[in-house]
């Protein structure tokens, strides 16, 4: 059984570089702890070349490298990077197990042809990690532990060929194979220091001398690694963001941070085959408090400019009202609509493309002002709702409608209050905003009496042709004894 393993070394540092990519190539150190006990936990290569090593005190590190960029370890950022590593692995195989933060195993059974062999699989793992902003190492082997060792100890890509496990492990020290210190010490007293030397020992008597741990280690050294994968069900939670050293007041500054966070989110979503169906922004405010802003997305999309425009629109309408110290964006995962496009007939539009344009236009016109018109189930002509725009694919049978063409009614929203002069119980002249004239012809009335149980509406409707040449729809609200122009035929 083949396994792939993705290893992201120095996860705290890589998590930081994901959020601040401009620090690439500079001496950077990530620190943990408080006061005098604070220590460096991860350093970049330029810092390491200047002598800064993990475990150093902050003062020592700064003395060794005066240009050192020091950042505190941010748990939320590190957690996002850990989840991103899982998402990258999930882009390659559906069965994923997390061994440790930044160390992910995938079930590689049947994936050889898809990715072009073991090396292709390892390359796919690294490429997926790079997409989510992580630099990693990958290993492929016949066994979980061997794949893990290959990834951690290899350089870039390490593929252990089938049957070559024993030879691969032979030169490694036993500690690298996970031997406990007590067992390693016992074996060292026997003069056994490497996996190859241990594998050369006979099996008989091992169990009585070294116990079950010794037998397991011996079997591993012989290249026998039968431990099954324990796949983890990845929760559809995607969150990105960062805490800031200085408060941000201006909107542009906030958007400057928001864009990369959205880009990281979208990359993670696409790794898992999802689109963004909604967003929630959490802004940590100065001196205390939090603003939670839910962003509605009209249709699931992966288009970052669209999502940014939606966030911007919401922030303009509901500004946080205080300086911002931290930003978190959580995405709701939504599955894309899959549709078979056609070879013949009318060209159809891919649902993803349509969803993107709908979300983009919704960001321009605002929430609730875009969709399919849905007349309400009511006798009131102008009542409507806005439905989700999800057009059905065209069918072969659809043809043009037969029959008469209909005149359109241009509705006045809201209806125009009108003054009506009556003669013989019927309207004779009408005056409203921008509309004045004598009634030339009239049809009606038709009474509508609805909503008695909640919102009563009782009115008489007329179609009136005025001396200005247009035909209007006029209504007399009987409950208020007021007249309204509902619309004009055009």
């Amino acid at each position, binding site marked *: 059984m083949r396994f792939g393993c993705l290893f992201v070394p120095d996860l705290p540092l890589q998590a930081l570089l994901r959020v601040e990519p401009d620090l690439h190539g500079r001496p950077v150190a990530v620190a943990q702890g408080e006061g005098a006990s604070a220590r460096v936990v991860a350093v970049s290569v330029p810092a390491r070349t200047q002598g800064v090593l993990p475990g150093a005190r902050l003062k020592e590190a700064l003395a060794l490298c005066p240009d050192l960029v020091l950042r505190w370890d941010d748990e939320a950022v590190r957690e996002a990077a850990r989840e991103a590593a899982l998402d990258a692995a999930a882009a390659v195989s559906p069965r994923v197990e997390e061994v440790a933060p930044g160390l992910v195993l995938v079930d590689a059974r049947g994936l050889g042809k898809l990715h072009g062999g073991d090396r292709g699989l390892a390359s796919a793992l690294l490429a997926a990690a790079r997409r989510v902003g992580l630099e990693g190492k990958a290993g492929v082997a016949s066994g979980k532990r061997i794949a893990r060792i290959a990834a951690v100890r290899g350089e870039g890509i390490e593929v252990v060929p089938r049957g070559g496990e024993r030879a691969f492990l032979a030169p490694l020290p036993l500690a690298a194979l996970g031997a406990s210190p007590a067992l390693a010490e016992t074996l060292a007293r026997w003069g056994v220091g490497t996996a190859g030397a241990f594998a050369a020992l006979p099996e008989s008597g091992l169990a009585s001398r070294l116990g079950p741990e010794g037998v397991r280690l011996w079997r591993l050294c012989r290249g026998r690694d039968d431990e099954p994968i324990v796949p983890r069900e990845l929760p559809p939670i995607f969150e990105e963001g960062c805490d800031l050293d200085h408060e941000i007041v201006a909107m542009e500054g906030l958007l400057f941070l928001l864009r990369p966070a959205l880009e990281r989110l979208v990359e993670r979503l696409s790794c898992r085959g999802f689109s963004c169906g909604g967003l929630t922004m959490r802004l940590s405010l100065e001196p205390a408090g939090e603003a939670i802003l839910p962003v509605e997305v009209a249709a699931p999309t992966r288009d970052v400019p669209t999502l940014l425009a939606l966030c911007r629109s919401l922030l303009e309408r509901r500004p946080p009202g205080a300086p911002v110290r931290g930003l978190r964006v959580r995405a709701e995962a939504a599955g894309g609509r899959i549709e078979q496009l056609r070879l013949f007939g009318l060209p159809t539009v891919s649902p993803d493309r349509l969803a993107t344009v709908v979300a983009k236009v919704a960001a321009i016109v605002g929430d609730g002002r875009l969709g399919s018109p849905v007349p309400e189930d009511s006798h009131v002509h102008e*009542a*409507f709702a*806005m439905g989700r725009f999800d*057009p059905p694919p065209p069918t072969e049978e659809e043809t043009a409608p037969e029959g008469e063409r*209909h005149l359109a009614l*241009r509705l006045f929203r809201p209806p125009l209050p009108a003054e009506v002069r009556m003669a013989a119980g019927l309207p004779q002249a009408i005056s409203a905003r921008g509309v004045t004239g004598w009634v030339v012809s009239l*049809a009606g009335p038709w009474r509508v009496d609805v909503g008695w149980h909640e919102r009563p509406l009782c009115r008489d409707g007329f179609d009136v042709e005025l001396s200005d040449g247009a*035909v209007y729809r006029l209504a007399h609200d009987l409950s208020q004894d007021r007249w309204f122009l509902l619309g004009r035929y055009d």
Partner: protein
Amino acid sequence: MAIPKRDLSARPELASLVADLRRSRLLVGPQELEHRLPTPLPTGLAPLDRLLGGGLPRGRIVELPGEKTGSTALALSIAVHLSRTGRLVAWVDAADAFDPRGAREAGAALARLLWCRPRDLRAAIRAADALIASGAFPLVVLDLRRETPRLVAQGAWLRLARGAEAHRSCLLVLGEAGAQSFAAATLVPSRAKARFSGKGPGRLFEGVELDCRLKRNKLGLAPGETKLAFRAPEHLPSLAWDPPPGTLRFGGGR
């Protein structure tokens, strides 16, 4: 004088000029030129199709100016036809005057009609631009009836015209919004007298007849006009739902 290709590569300043002209779309190759030529999008109104040489020109702006003359009915009829034949239609309603129930009673497949209600003119132009640029909507109706003509900048029309041409969408503009020089055709409907029938309280508004004239024409079409009749919608909306077979509408059990 034709310039041989080899000379073009030998003269970098000329090559850069050609590249600039191509980028600014002033110089096009024969294939692109063919792509730019408008193909007709049938409207479902046979007399209008005859007037327009087969239908609305794809990739062009068509203007429907005038008020109270039936231009909305004309646009709605075209939208009904396209939506019923499986195409998507976007209706950018800057005037906020669209009547969903009227559209349904006219036969529109509302699921294929994207209704967009921008709050201001700027948002309407941006929305129309995004919808055209998506290439998903063969017809985008931009209803600017309420706005004053000078509000839409010429640069915006230029952008819309280029977008329509590049993505093969037809932009139908309702209202006199200053698109004249960018419109490939201007249809001017003029209405005859409204028809009423009956007498007294039961009198009915029957509908109107339109004379539709092709005014501006950059398509090389013969000038002409055509007559179209439109029926008034029902005053009392038909019930939005029909009772399932075997059930009673009022009283009684299911």
